């Protein structure tokens, strides 16, 4: 069974030059590798799509996303600091597979140590890269900067704003050319899959989602940090491994836009489909243990306050919608809530998920859906009884949103 954070692969030529590009794609397809960036799209299918778009002589690019948008989940940084050569090898293999000669390693501006390490690894490996040019690019900072279309905008020296898809980058990405955008973690799997065959990779994980995943366990745990676990592991197991405290209230899965599950959901497994079924997503693979004394409504409000600051601001539902949800939630935690606020939040959430431009706004309503479904009683206590069940809410506003009456 191969592990990402296990022994580094043997040194030597990068890019699996002994395997033909077609064979690389085929092996990746057979491995069932899915993108680790959060959406879980099949990597083999993506490679195939880029190859297809590049057929017309449009040379593709490779972008390795090591941005770590969710700063509580430093997965790319961990990999790049501990396995830089594996990542570079993965980039080289991917580039060879799609026929790219330029690749970009896209990093967060605050990941200075990672950047230094990656630069050192790059200079060491320069001779092993052949004619592949790998450059390090620095993103704009902030949560939205990790979104793939924003990464492409930054690489084009444009304002860091999301771009509507379709067309997907595999068809039209950087500078209009086919672009393979993969997370650093996904790419780091390629060396072992391509060189050793998919069997070792498939030894862990589930049939639908083989392999292991780096997750960041945070919050009320004794040993927070990045762990490598197989897909299909239950959230409870992961939390126990990090030493979770007793009396947990909720598990926040998937980073700032992820859903908040009740602590009783410990048996939910780490799996794209299963997380989606309960209203969460893998996202940044942060698993946060929320302690008992946290008010979930206030927590949802804090998340939306953060999102309202971090939205790239191009599309309306995300830019304004997040702010308005924050306002409604702050109204509820300030004792100004009304029963009609709950269906209103549902309405807003549904619209935001359907009308937003990128994953940011599409996934943000998960917070609302999960908290309202799993902690409905807490919302109602705030609204009906005017009290916070945890006793932690202090009024933050004196006026709530009102319906306007035309003069």
């Amino acid at each position, binding site marked *: 069974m191969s592990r990402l954070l296990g022994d580094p692969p043997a040194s030597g030529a990068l890019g699996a030059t002994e395997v033909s590009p077609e064979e690389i794609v085929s092996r990746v397809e057979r491995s069932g590798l899915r993108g680790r960036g959060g959406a879980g799209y099949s990597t083999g299918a993506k490679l195939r799509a880029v190859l297809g778009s590049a057929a017309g002589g449009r040379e593709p690019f490779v972008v390795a996303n090591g941005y770590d948008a969710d700063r509580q989940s430093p997965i790319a940084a961990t990999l790049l600091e501990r396995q830089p050569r594996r990542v570079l090898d993965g980039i080289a293999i991917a580039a060879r597979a799609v026929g790219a000669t330029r690749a970009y390693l896209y990093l967060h501006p605050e990941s200075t140590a990672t950047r230094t390490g990656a630069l050192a690894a790059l200079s060491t490996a320069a001779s092993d890269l052949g004619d592949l040019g790998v450059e390090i690019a620095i993103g704009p900072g902030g949560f939205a900067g990790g979104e793939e279309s924003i990464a492409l905008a930054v690489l084009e020296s444009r304002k*860091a704003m999301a771009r509507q898809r379709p067309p997907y980058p595999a068809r039209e990405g950087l500078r209009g050319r086919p672009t393979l955008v993969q997370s650093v973690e996904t790419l780091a799997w390629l060396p072992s899959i391509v060189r050793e065959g998919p069997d070792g990779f498939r030894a862990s994980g589930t049939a639908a989602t083989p392999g292991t995943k780096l997750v960041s366990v945070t919050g009320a745990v004794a040993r927070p940090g990045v762990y490598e676990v197989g897909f299909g592991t239950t959230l409870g197991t992961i939390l126990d491994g990090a030493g979770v405290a007793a009396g947990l209230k909720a598990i926040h899965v998937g980073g700032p836009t992820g859903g908040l599950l009740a602590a009783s959901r410990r048996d939910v497994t780490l799996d794209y489909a299963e997380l989606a079924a309960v209203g969460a997503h893998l996202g940044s693979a942060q698993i946060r243990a929320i302690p008992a004394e946290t008010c979930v409504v206030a927590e949802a409000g804090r998340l939306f306050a953060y999102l309202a600051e971090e939205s790239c601001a191009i599309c309306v539902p995300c*830019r304004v919608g997040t702010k*308005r949800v924050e306002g409604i939630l702050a109204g509820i935690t300030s004792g100004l809530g009304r029963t009609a606020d709950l269906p209103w939040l549902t309405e807003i959430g549904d619209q935001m998920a359907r009308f937003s431009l990128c994953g940011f706004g599409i996934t943000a309503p998960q917070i609302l859906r999960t908290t309202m479904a799993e902690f409905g009683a807490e919302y109602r206590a705030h609204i009906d009884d005017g009290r916070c069940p945890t006793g932690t809410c202090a009024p933050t506003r004196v006026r709530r949103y009102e319906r306007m009456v035309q003069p």
Partner: protein
Amino acid sequence: MSLLTNLQPGESQLPTVSHHGEIPSGQPTVTITIDGQEITAVAGEAILRAAQRAGFNVPTLCDDEKLAPAAACRMCLVEVEGHDRPLPSCHLPVEAGMRIVSASDGLFKERRQNLEYILSDHNAYCLPPCQVSCPTHIDIPGYLELMAKGQHVEAARLVKETLPFPFTLGLVCPRPCQEVCRRGLVEEEIAICQCHGYTGEMVMEMDQAPTPFPQEVASGKRVAVIGAGPAGMTAAYYVALKGHAVTVFDRLAKQGGMLRYGIPEYRLPKVKLDKELDCVWQLQGTEFKGGMELGRDFTVDDLLTRGYDAVFLGIGAWVSNEMRVPGEGLRGVIPAVQFLRDNASGIPVEVGKGSRVVVLGGGFTAFDCSRTSRRLGAEVTLCYRRSRKEMGAHYTEVDDAEHEGIRLEFFVAPVRVVERDGRVAGVEFQRMELGEPDASGRRRPIAVVGSEHVIECDIVIAAFGQTPDLDFVKKEQGLRKTRRDTIITNAAFVTDRPGVFAGGDAVIGASTVIQCVAQGKLAAKAIDRFLAGADMAEVAKEIAAEEEVPELIDIVPYKPEEPQVRMPFLPYAERVLSFELIEKGYNKAAAEKEAGRCLQCVCPDVGRCDLQRLSLEHKLTDNRFHRAEPVDYHDYEYDLTHDFILRDLNKCINCTQCVRICKDVIGADCYGLMGTGFDSIVTTPFNASLNFTDCVSCGACVETCPTGALMLRERDLTSYEIDVVRCIYCGDCVEVCPHGALGETPNFELSTYKRFGVTVLSKEELAGARTWKVSEQIPLGGHEDTRPPEIRPPGPPPWGA
């Protein structure tokens, strides 16, 4: 292939389609289905473009066909088969066989929600509620702004566009505008009426009153206006301004109608009324014929046969409604209208010093009667069957009456008039209490059993409203009346008889002066259109559409406090036995100060604003994100630094059209979307003035802005001069002028302005100057060869010389 790629250099060009919907032959096309309808689209173009060409109304706020799509506003999202989420049609290129849903209940609701977000941070006023609520729709912010600048004649001109008698209305109007004034949300409403009262008073002193526009040349048509009251006089004024000859008939000897014979002197001095009404007689072709009563001295037929092309019936409502209680025929019971008219005409009335008067009613007329009686020395009790709140009269009037010593009795209804010696000795009342609201929304009074009591008095004045006197209708053809005794007309004020119009109280029943003025104004418009041979059904539709109350008026107001400038009033002590005018009027400084308080809560972009249009289309006239904390909205300063472009970031909706047009079309690249999240704004680098950018003042950003965030700055007109000595003939000014005010001529050296002391050269003159040399004077008028000697050193040599 996306449209973005198409804009990349070296890639294929955007498909070219003419603006007016024709696909040029030779373009590869595909067939797509929108809402079940198959349409042909140019391969590679955006769905939105194809849909618009096929006549689908897909809403959008950030699309401009000159620009790369941004998919920012999320209004043009459509359902595309095979995609689980709606996609922006401005961004997605058509593909053969695509099946698209562009309109559905779900999309409508979601787009509406989206608009609600946009409007919730569109911190701006839309329409001024005062103007909307005024029956005549005076441009109130407009004249107040002019007044604040001290341009009072201009202000009067503007007021007179819809209201010919600003002084009179300043005194007698019930002020519906002030009730809705947004300044009232800050502290206290603007004294709107007193302000136009001031302009009206000021221009009354002029020999020739200003008109809103010059009177048109005589049309040869003649119009008879019957009734010299507010409706008739207004109609006469505007009909005359259109160049038609107007004769105003009135059954009373003097002009003014109810203004003269209904409203007492202390509210409106008749000398001043006459002076103001003079503005009608100053117009060419107007004449007044007093003492001529319709039905007695002439009929409508007579007028039409005597050469009048149209007749306007503004006969008012002069019959006081009956009390409908026993004893109302007794001596000492006076109908309100008769009492006021007799008093105004100088006919002695029965009320005098020491008489005890009971006035019945709660409207303006009741108060006019009470306060008049009081001034004649009587002890007055005003009795009303509901509470103070339900009174029809303005609250200031009620307060004043009380201060002047009039007793107010509420919740009493007359049961009978008590008789002694063949005349009135008192009125028996019954106490009332309020029950359920009736059709008018006022709570219906119900009698309290056993509460009968008598108030003793010598005179009873009944002011239960008035009705038009329509006895003459029997003798006329084609005139019909309602059960309420009003004349039936359509929205264009046309009666069933062509050429005969009616308006004012005679049509809408007894109402306020301002409503009658509004009627007169609209009727004049209809009459003018009738005389021009227009289809009156069309005119009726137009007028109805104009008078529709707009649904979207307000967004989010905020302004610092400043109290109203108080109107000086005649002290209560001096009102005893005196008909002196109560409102003393503003002086110039006070009027300008008060006018300056106006929030100017009107957006110059109204009518051109796509956001407003879409909001109305989506029935978004309320907003659920209103009135929360300041952090929920943005309150930016106006940027007035640029000479031509006014930036109001409060209205910006982040559509980024200006960013794209300035960068991709103009090339100046002045704007960008700065920051992230809710607090992001579209502005210049470092939020600096446009003066510090590469702005060429082309106005493209203003033109493309879908709302009022970028507007052309309103300016007082100035003339510009060119310093010929410093001009290097670069032609930049010609190139950037967005309005083509500067042009190139065949001989560009001659296209200078004020060269050789010539002020302005006409196009023809410049065209004719083709053969003239720089050093030569351009002959003006005819192009004869009269070359004067060289008077200036020659300019730079022509290019390539």
